């Protein structure tokens, strides 16, 4: 053996530039990935991570810059070209056909055909792929019946079936439970040992320090820095991403907690919510946690009138509410920030201003006519106070980054001036800076005497921001924690898995 170390990178991107109308998304970005390495691509929303990986996936063409794989330059002019170059990208939104089975999805577009599709060979190859991953995924049911984690495994298997050498994963852990994340990491380590280079994007800093070998940070479309994970502290990473220093990740300022405000009793719906009773007090942040599928979202959707409840009473400030639709709930002073902002929170093709005004048209109109000046002024105030980055109020919501979209949704609910705000995963897929701003906002709201119910899967967040925590398991409340500061993550997990 010679002493030449394997320093020739597997992937080298340099001088990548890309702009969109009105936005310089990437300017002179470079990235270097070696064989058998996990690279964490970090940055706030709008920093250019998505654009960069779409460039790798062949969905965007850069205006300048070179991409070299294994020493030879490649032209990633289409998704097909990227696959041919050995790059697999697993986007946050999966590309599975819901009606097809796992193995049909894996070989979609590359069916092994003689005269007919060779089903048995395909099925066997799919089974072999899952075996290689060391997981068990039902092969013969439609993908829509698979859990999020299983769907993700199908995506990974699909990439492996295309002989990828570089696997890009955009927020793969966002929708997974802690156990599922552990399994995912085991798979990533296995792939790494097979020499595959992995680009991993996540907003959860804990994960980065657990799985990544090196970190590359983008800020405002530029290369902000990179280093081996071992040489970077959490604090340094946050500062690189945000561009300024942040002292406290969870800036909780407890407000004065008053009387019981929203009282829920005997809430139930089918097998998803079973006899749930609790209350929220004035000025309180009530954390609601548990595994995905434990019924947390189902409970708040019943309170908000998004689904019909089989039974149960809802009382607000001593008055029984008859909530039968979200419209009723909003009028009564209860609002729900949904976990999926793209499909439930925003009308993507309409302007951010229209989205903002939608739930509060009653206050922003006179005799059925919208008072657009009033609406514009009200929104401007939120644009400033929440530092929403938009070029224009008429900008369609779809053109915004995730963090800015979430802030528009927040602004829309703040304008309603509700008494009880329900936040379902308010910081999912949002960068550190924006998270911090949302936490500050929660402090402001509770200081005004408002009540917040916060659903979150991120245990540090639940422990860091809640005054009281409810844990759910299989549609029931399995535990209540009043003394939050002395509680550990392990205790929460124990309650969640019962």
């Amino acid at each position, binding site marked *: 053996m010679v002493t030449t170390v394997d320093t020739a990178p597997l992937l080298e991107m340099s001088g990548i530039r890309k702009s*969109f*109308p*009105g*936005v310089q998304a990437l300017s002179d970005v470079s990235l270097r990935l070696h064989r058998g390495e996990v690279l964490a691509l970090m940055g706030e929303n709008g920093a250019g991570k998505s654009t960069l990986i779409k460039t790798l996936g062949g969905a965007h063409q850069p205006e300048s810059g070179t991409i070299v794989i294994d020493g030879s330059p490649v032209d990633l002019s289409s998704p097909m070209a990227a696959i041919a170059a050995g790059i697999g990208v697993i986007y946050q939104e999966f590309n599975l056909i819901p009606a097809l089975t796992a193995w049909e999805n894996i070989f979609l577009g590359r069916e092994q055909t003689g005269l007919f599709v060779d089903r048995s060979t395909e099925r066997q190859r799919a089974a072999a792929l899952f075996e290689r991953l060391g997981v068990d995924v039902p092969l013969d049911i439609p993908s829509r019946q698979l859990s999020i984690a299983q769907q993700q495994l199908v995506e990974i298997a699909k990439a492996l079936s295309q002989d990828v050498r570089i696997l890009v994963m955009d927020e793969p852990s966002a929708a997974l439970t802690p156990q599922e994340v552990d399994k995912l990491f085991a798979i990533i380590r296995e792939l790494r040992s097979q020499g595959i280079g992995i680009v991993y994007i996540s907003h959860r800093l804990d994960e980065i320090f657990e799985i990544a070998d090196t970190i590359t940070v983008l800020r405002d479309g530029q290369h902000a820095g990179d280093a081996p994970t071992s040489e970077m502290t959490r604090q340094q990473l946050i500062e690189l991403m945000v561009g300024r220093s942040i002292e406290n990740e969870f800036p909780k300022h407890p407000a004065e907690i008053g009387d019981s405000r929203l009282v829920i009793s005997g809430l139930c719906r089918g097998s998803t919510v079973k006899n749930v009773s609790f209350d929220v007090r004035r000025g309180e942040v009530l954390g609601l946690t548990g595994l995905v599928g434990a019924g947390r979202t189902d409970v708040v959707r019943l309170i*908000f009138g*998004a689904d019909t409840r089989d039974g149960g009473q809802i009382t607000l400030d001593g008055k029984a509410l008859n909530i039968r*639709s*979200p*419209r009723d*709930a*909003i*009028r009564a002073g209860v609002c*729900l920030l*949904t976990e999926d902002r793209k*499909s*439930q*929170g*925003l*009308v*993507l*093709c*309409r302007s951010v201003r*229209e989205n903002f*005004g*939608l*739930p509060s*048209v009653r206050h922003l*109109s006179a005799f*059925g*006519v*919208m008072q*657009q000046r009033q609406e*514009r002024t009200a929104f*401007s105030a939120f*644009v*400033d106070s929440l530092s929403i980055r*938009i*070029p*224009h*109020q*008429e*900008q369609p919501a*779809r*053109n915004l980054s995730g963090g800015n979209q979430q802030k528009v949704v927040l602004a*829309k609910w703040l304008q309603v001036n509700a008494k009880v705000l329900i936040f379902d995963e308010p910081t999912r897929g949002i960068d550190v800076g924006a998270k911090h701003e949302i936490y500050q906002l929660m402090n402001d709201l509770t200081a005004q005497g408002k009540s917040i119910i916060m659903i979150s899967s991120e245990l540090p967040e639940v422990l860091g921001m809640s005054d009281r925590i409810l844990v759910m398991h299989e549609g029931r409340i399995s535990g209540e924690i009043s003394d939050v500061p002395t509680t550990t993550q392990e205790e929460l997990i124990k309650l969640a898995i019962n």
Partner: protein
Amino acid sequence: MNDSKPLRWKALANDYGMVLVLLILIAAFSVLTLERQSSTGSDAGRVVARNIIAAHGTSGTVVVVAGLKPPDERFLREAKEALEAGGVTVAAIVGGKPADARRTIERVLLEGHSIDAIAATGDAAKWSIYDRFESVGSNKCVSAAPALWPTFAKSENVLNVANQTAIYAIIAIGMTMVIITAGIDLSVGSLVALAAVATAVFIRDVGEGTQTGTGLMIAGCCVGIGVCALAGIFNGAMITRLGIPPFITTLAMMLMARGLARRLSNELSIQALPASFTWIGGDTTFGIPNPVILMITLYGIAHIVMSRTVFGRYVYAVGGNAEAARLSGVPVKRVIVIVYTLCGALAGLGGIVQASKLGSGDPKLGLMFELDVIAAVVVGGTSLMGGEGRIFGTLIGAFIIAVIKNGMNLMKVGAPEQQIVLGAVVLLAVLVDTLKRRGTAL
């Protein structure tokens, strides 16, 4: 942070691109139909009078001759005034056919006048009757030089195009709203027939046929529109309560409404209508056809409703993302029912205008209207995916289609070729929309 200029420009191009297309079409057809027009109208009248005074002085005797069209009337009036102002004796004016002119000239000669000149429009000067009189002869005709002017841009033709477009455009208002909610309404063509027949039957049976008074006639129109609004409510209820796709619901309504119209009328065209019934569809106000005035008024109202009111905001939100709209407190089902009701009612109104124009309630009215109306909406830039579109875009779209049809008619393009062109235009409009979308998607 609030207003930035570049976006404004882009929005301008997006919003007014179709207007530009329409203007280009108008300019193109104007050039293509440029031809020598027969000189008539008030300008020609003045020119003719001036020439006669120049040739014969102020002592002559003149007969003024023209045809029957509105510009001919203006020619007669203007020429007579100008001649008399110049001191010339106008022995007679004739607006009519060659035979009328012959009789008048005969009478004037019999009365003992000698005719020094005949002031005629370009067409009237070509008549052969003058040579029958020894003392007259066609060489005494004076007419203005023919002007070069596009047939397409003649005021009668422009009003004609507007008048023909009006019915489609009125129905297309409702269709635009429906399509913005990501729906479709295939029943509008049949509802045109249903409204026409229901109104005619009401006037015939409840009123007194041709002797029906204004009150009962208006009641009849309300019945026609009301029946169609009910059909719209039915469509909306099927879609929102039972979850039947709009395509299927309105396809069924298209069949049912047509059948109902045929049964109600016993498959006959109902003619027993009062003469005043033709006012809304056949008459003019200040020279503008009433359907055009109705169309402009309705578009003004619809524009304000869609761009300024809570209801308009709700319609766009429902089409853009019904679930997000519902979770934002929008009464989604109610909005959808109202939209289909409005669409039905406007189709009913279109049916009454059409019946009024033709003076009869015919169960065969409005055949295939739904396709022309949908084409106008799509050409006008409304997305079939919902959530996007503009009311005035639809008006422009309706006019683009009407202008192309009319221009091709004037150029004597055959009906089959016209269909091919119109199909291509619809495809092109959607293609432009698709490309635009791809260009702006980040």
